[in-house]
């Protein structure tokens, strides 16, 4: 499977006056993968996504989606025909009924899948004749998801897809996501729900204060990040423990807790050299990795 880049940005930036919402973000989202785009509220995820879809003009840098420039209006219209998108607020047209929304959206895309549309209508139990304005938030979210999932696009971009969904809804959404990926769609979704990303993501990108601070495969993260609990009779200086890969050190009494993003074996060796009386190694979940990445900066 050739790995081309479905989304490629080069130092993409956006400033609003003095506020830098997105700073020099260089993304490479590979095709046929599920990439999770994580970050705190206000980190710049939605702004980045909107730049990819030409809703917002970048202040600097460039980007390409499906090989087409996001700066070119004509290119952008063309690429949007092959991209399915679910926005953060999942707002649709209140004056249309569910059925009208489906018919309206369907008319724009040649990759519409009637079979998925029918299946999701019954799974989500959406009332066809109800006006969108009178739908609950959960139902509206499901409709927004249906309008994106009832297609076979090349790229599916979701901004906080689980927001407004109950646990069953989240499960159904993730199943649809996985099914789309199986059919060849590349998935790029932003979230601050770590557990979802942990289950389905192949690649994880973390955005913090507008900057891309982590861009790695989830497998690599799982294999390299470790938490070490060291016990010393005489606690050494933290600097002597700071080998390459150390992300954070916390010392309380004779205990030193070190989180590393790699080279755990190096640190164990160093700990032994410094006469640690006990060395415990535990894996680090994505949540901790996320916290480590956003806390220290």
């Amino acid at each position, binding site marked *: 499977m050739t790995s081309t880049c479905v989304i490629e940005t080069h130092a993409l930036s956006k400033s609003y006056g003095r506020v830098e919402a997105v700073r020099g973000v260089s993304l490479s989202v590979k095709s*046929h*993968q*599920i990439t999770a785009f994580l970050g705190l509220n206000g980190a710049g995820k939605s702004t980045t996504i909107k730049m990819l879809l030409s809703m917002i003009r970048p202040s600097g840098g460039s980007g390409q989606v499906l090989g087409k420039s996001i700066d070119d209006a004509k290119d952008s219209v063309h690429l949007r025909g092959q991209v399915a998108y679910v926005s953060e607020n999942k707002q649709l047209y209140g004056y249309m009924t569910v059925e009208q929304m489906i018919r309206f959206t369907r008319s724009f895309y040649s990759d519409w899948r009637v079979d998925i549309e029918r299946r999701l209508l019954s799974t989500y139990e959406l009332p066809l004749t109800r006006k969108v304005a009178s739908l609950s938030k959960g139902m509206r979210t499901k409709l927004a998801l249906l309008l994106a999932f009832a297609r076979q696009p090349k790229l599916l971009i979701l901004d906080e897809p689980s927001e407004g969904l109950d646990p069953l809804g989240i*499960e159904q959404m*993730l*199943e649809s996501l*996985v*099914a789309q*990926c*199986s*059919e060849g769609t590349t998935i790029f979704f932003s979230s601050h729900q770590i*557990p979802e990303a*942990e*289950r*389905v*993501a*192949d690649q994880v990108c973390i955005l913090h204060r507008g900057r891309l601070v982590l861009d790695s495969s*989830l*497998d690599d993260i*799982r*294999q390299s*990040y*470790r938490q070490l609990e060291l016990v010393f009779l005489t606690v050494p200086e933290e600097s002597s423990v700071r080998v390459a890969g150390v992300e954070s050190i916390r010392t309380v009494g004779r205990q030193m807790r070190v989180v590393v993003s790699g080279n*755990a*074996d*190096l640190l*164990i*060796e160093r700990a032994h050299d410094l006469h640690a009386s006990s*060395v*415990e*190694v*535990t*894996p*680090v*979940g*994505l*949540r901790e990795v996320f916290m480590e990445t956003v806390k220290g900066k």
Partner: protein
Amino acid sequence: MLFKLNPTTGLPLYLQLMQQIRHGVESGVLQHGDQLPGIRTLAEDLVVSPNTVAKAYSELEHEGLLEMRHGAGAFVSAKRNLAFQMSRVHQARGQARKLIGNFRDAGLDDDEIRRIFEVELLNPAEVLKRR
């Protein structure tokens, strides 16, 4: 076969899946010729990325444990020395049982024993040897 993948441990999901399939073969849950679910079906079932399943199947195919038949799916393939592999694991398990028994007699509790194995698996000397 039923799988249970844990996304929060330090082990990549595809490795967990491989382990569980291997374990299935060793324990007899999976017999030679049994068909495993297709990549898409299993991915949707477990709600994991299809790439995870694809990678696991691909690696196991390299190891000779699975045979991918185009269009038909993944089939368990009993290698000639599978029996030997099974006995090797069986032997190692017996040795580990004895060793763990010794540790327990020495007063170590199960958590401490587990940690010891974790550290040793990451032991630089071993790592260098593997390299």
